[in-house]
Each structure stands twice: as C-alpha cells, then as structure tokens.
C-alpha cells in the first residue's frame, strides 16, 4: 500500500473547506480516505447476510438456491441473488464457441452465433421467474419460517434479447408446425416442449439480465425467457430449438411438474404461474420493536398479466384493506405493494391476497387444497399468513 493518507486536518488545510461544509453529527464518519474504485462492485460488508439460501441437497449438481425476498427493495432481483434450480449443475460455456440451432419443421434450418443475436433487433422486458415448486411446502401444511424459505424460488429481472418470433421468422415455419422443443447445453440436456402459440407471442431468446450479460447460473450466454410460465420451461444455456408437430413428452413434462390430483389423474402442461402474493415485511423471522407505525410491504405477481389489486388483512382475515401498488405495474412481473400499519402491540396475523387483470383472485390454502388435495405441490399459490406475537416476534405458525 503506497496510498498517501491525509488526516482530516491536513485535508481541510489543503482544500480550504470550512467546517460548515462537513456533516456534523454524533455518528462516526471516516477520518481517513477510503479505498478508490474497483473493477466490479460488491455490496457493503454490512450486507453480508443478504445472500441466497442453499438448502442441503444430495449432490451439488442437482440443487437449488433461494432469493432473500425479505431483504429486497422494489421489484428487481440483483443478478447475484436470482434463485437457481439446476438439474445437471452449471456448465461453463465460452460464448465464442456457443451456437443455437433452429431446425425441424422449418423452411431454412439456421445456426446462430452470439454475434448474430447481438446484431438482431432486441427488446428489454421485466419479467418474474418462479419455480413451479415454489412454496409447495405451504400446501402440505409445512409452512416455511421466512419469505426466503417459503417463496424464495422467485425472482424478477430485466431481460434483454431477441424475440423468438424474430428468429422463427428467419427460419420460416412449415405447415403442421404446432410445438417446439427447446434444449439446453447442460450435461443433462434439459428439454421442454412449448406450444408455438406461446413461442410466437412473448418468448425471448435472452442474453442480457439487469443490464449485463446473463450470469452463468442463469444460462450464460443465452437462454429462453417464457414470461409468466413455470421457470423450468425457460431453458437455460439454450443450444437448440426444434419446431415439431406434437409435444415430445420429456420427463420434465410427464414425470415431473405434473400435479397429481386426489382422483389419481395428473395435470399436464400446467404452464402458467397463477396470481400470488406474499408479505415480505413484517414477515416470519423478523421482530417488531414495540407498538407503533410500520410499513407493510410485499410482492404480488401473475403469469396471466398485470396485478390490478392487492389487499392486506392485519386482523387475521376479518377485514381487508386495499394496498398501494408501487409503479411500475407490469404484466408478468413482480409488483411491489405497501400499506401503512399502526400496530397496537397485540397478537394478530398478517396476510395478503392479489387479483390480476383477468379478475382471478388468489385463493386461500384451504380453498386450493379442497380442489387439488395434498399431492399436487407444484403451482401452489395460496395465501400466506404471518403470525405476530405480542412480544413482537413474527412467526410462520
């Protein structure tokens, strides 16, 4: 370290600044110059607890991590905190050697390089991704103790890329084309079938996330973003799109991500993530510092479009108040809501329910279980309840 250290006195003398220009308070502020800029910034060391939660899994390759929703502001998830679900680990891919082939029922099968994608017209859109299994534990009456553990397989980013429709225009669809198979370049070559109707509507071939390249664990260098649908179909590390005339019935659309009903049948192609909300503050794992004013805030989202209303109950579901929705309110994106609350210091419970632009209202857990039973734990979207104790503790049960 050869950096010259200036004392405050020397600094004042050198700059001729007056004491009045400096902050005067009882708080400590640095007497020494801090370090200079760095090539890639990191959060403050005081934010070290704001990290993804990695549950213990049998192997590192087949694993997941959860976003710390209780510590998030606004609607964008920092890229390094985006939830992950991997079935064959994170591949390391050199973009110079990565290509995406589009073939099948097309007039002109083509192979695109990353440079091709960057040259094509692009769009940027804010969309949430949610794992089909997010908060499935709530359905089977095993509520998780904080928002990260209950709803943390949920994140929202600004995605930049080429509309898949533009690419399908380049290859030209042949008659009979009705589905596509998207495949990743991970070791297990994850593949999902997607109806062409959706592919031509709003699917993106994305290379950008929150203003920079995708993170490796989010599909670097290029992935699908299938807005509003269960996260698994947004194939990461995209390497191949095959236009076909039928769904190909991969294991991830038959054996997994299908919901088993009480009558023994299972639901298939349960793509859309229905309207759902969760209070992230005050929420489980947090502690209220006595009676007084608190802002209740949380997130609402719907795979069918925009959130039009979010209601909050602060009296264990007896009455509901309409919460304020923070701008922007975007389709298939997280929407931040807030409600002012004067806590009287008594035991109560907090819960939220949202309505989307189709008029669909988020159901209670009991209403959902009455229809779907206890074995269809994917695509759960019931109301989440947090219990406030008189001592200020907020619990999940």
């Amino acid at each position, binding site marked *: 370290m050869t950096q010259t250290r200036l004392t405050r006195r020397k600094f004042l003398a050198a700059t001729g600044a007056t004491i009045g220009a400096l902050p005067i308070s009882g708080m400590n502020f640095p007497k020494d110059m801090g370090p200079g800029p760095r090539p890639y910034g990191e959060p403050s060391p005081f934010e070290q607890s704001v990290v993804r939660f990695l549950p213990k899994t049998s192997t590192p390759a087949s694993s997941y991590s959860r976003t710390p929703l209780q510590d998030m502001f606004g609607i964008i998830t920092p890229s390094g905190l985006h939830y992950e679900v991997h079935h064959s680990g994170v591949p390391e891919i050199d973009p110079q050697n990565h290509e995406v082939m589009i073939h099948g029922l097309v007039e002109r099968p083509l192979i695109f390089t990353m440079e091709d994608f960057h040259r094509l017209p692009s769009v940027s859109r804010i969309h949430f991704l949610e794992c089909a299994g997010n908060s499935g534990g709530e359905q089977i009456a095993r509520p998780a103790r904080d928002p990260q553990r209950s709803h943390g397989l949920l994140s929202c980013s600004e995605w930049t890329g080429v509309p898949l429709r533009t690419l399908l225009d380049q290859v030209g669809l042949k008659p009979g084309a*009705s589905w596509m198979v998207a495949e990743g370049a991970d070791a297990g070559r994850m593949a999902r079938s997607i109806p062409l109707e959706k592919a031509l509507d709003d699917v993106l071939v994305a290379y950008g996330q929150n203003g920079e390249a995708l993170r490796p664990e989010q599909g670097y260098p290029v992935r699908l973003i299938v807005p509003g649908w269960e996260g698994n179909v947004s194939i990461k590390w995209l390497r191949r799109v095959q236009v076909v005339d039928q769904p190909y019935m991969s294991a991830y659309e038959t054996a997994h991500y299908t919901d088993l009903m009480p009558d023994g049948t299972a639901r298939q192609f349960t793509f859309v993530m229905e309207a759902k909300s969760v209070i992230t503050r005050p929420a489980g794992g947090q502690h209220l510092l006595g009676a007084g004013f608190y802002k209740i805030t949380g997130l609402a989202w719907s795979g069918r479009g925009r959130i039009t209303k979010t209601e909050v109950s602060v009296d264990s579901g007896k009455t509901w108040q309409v919460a304020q929705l923070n701008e922007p309110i975007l389709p298939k994106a997280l929407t931040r809501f807030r409600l002012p609350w004067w806590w009287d210091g008594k035991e109560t419970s907090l819960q939220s329910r949202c309505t989307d632009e189709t008029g669909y209202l988020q159901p209670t857990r009991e209403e959902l279980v009455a229809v779907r039973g206890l074995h269809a734990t994917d695509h759960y979207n019931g109301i989440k309840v947090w219990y406030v104790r008189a001592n200020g503790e907020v619990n999940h049960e």
Partner: protein
Amino acid sequence: MNKIALYITCALTAVAIAALGQSQQYKLGRPATPEEIRELDISVAPDGSGLPKGRGTVVQGQGIYETLCANCHGDRGQGMLQYPALTGGQATLKSSDPLRTVGSYWPYATTVWDYIHRKMPYARPGTLTPDQTYAVTAFVLYLNGILNKEAELNETTLPHVKMPNRNGFVCDPRPDVRSKPKNP
C-alpha cells in the same frame, strides 16, 4: 394414434400455427447442414419420431443396469436414499401415499428411453449408446412387469409399449380454484 388421442385431451396442442405473414429477413445465421442437425438432434417423440436405429434385450439391460444403475436405484429399482424408485407404486396414485415411478406414473416408454439417453448414468450423462439405452429401458420396464424376460426393444417396438398410466394425464383445467372471500 398417440397424436390423435392427445389432441382430444388437450385443446392446447390442437393449435397448428398458420405460416407467418411477411416477415423481415435479416440474412443472419448460417444454414444448418443435415450432418449438423443429425449430430445435435436427440429429441424423441411418443410416436417414435427421432428414435435411432438400435436394439437391446432385457437380459443385456440387466448387465448394464447392475454395473451402472443399481448403485443408486437399487438392484430391483426400489430406489435408495435420495435416489428415486423406478419400480413399485402401481395402483397407489389415488391413495394417501402415492408413489410415482416409471411403472406407476410415466405415460410413455419413449420418455424413459429419452431420459436415460440424456441424463443417465447420473455422473456421466449422455454416455450410453442407443443399443445400451434400448437394453436398459427394456430391463427397467421388465422390473415393472411391463415387459417379459425375453423381450427386446428397438426403434419400432418401443413406441408401442403400453405404459400402465398412459391415460392418467389430463390437460391443465385452471383456473380451477374459485376463491369466494368471506370479507370482500
């Protein structure tokens, strides 16, 4: 036949897309050669589209299974620790303790072939040849009582294997839960 049955079940699949209208051509991307397509295209459909030529017997599959699969899935496909069971569970789907396995749940034999071909063995996915994949698929189906011990599978016979839960799937009927708030 598969397709017709599916179209009846799922309105979603019946949407054939009319050719796109006039579109801007950017002349980017290079043509994919038939060789390049052949090399990358590993997709397999329920009607057998995409299955490579090959064959494998239950007996051949047993040898491969014992070497590469039994360590995790157990010698009879019963599953071990966190590794899923491949057998059992038939007639449990309506019960309070359903067990979803290849035999009790998976609707298509082609899916079994495709999953083994893509993802197995777990630590070295994609290393089985088509013949080995037919053989292991045959053995797993034999363990489930779906094939007999003398059976052989190939690209023609595999799509015709009738899985016990073939008709157990319905298309997404949501929105299915109509919330009726007591205090609107």
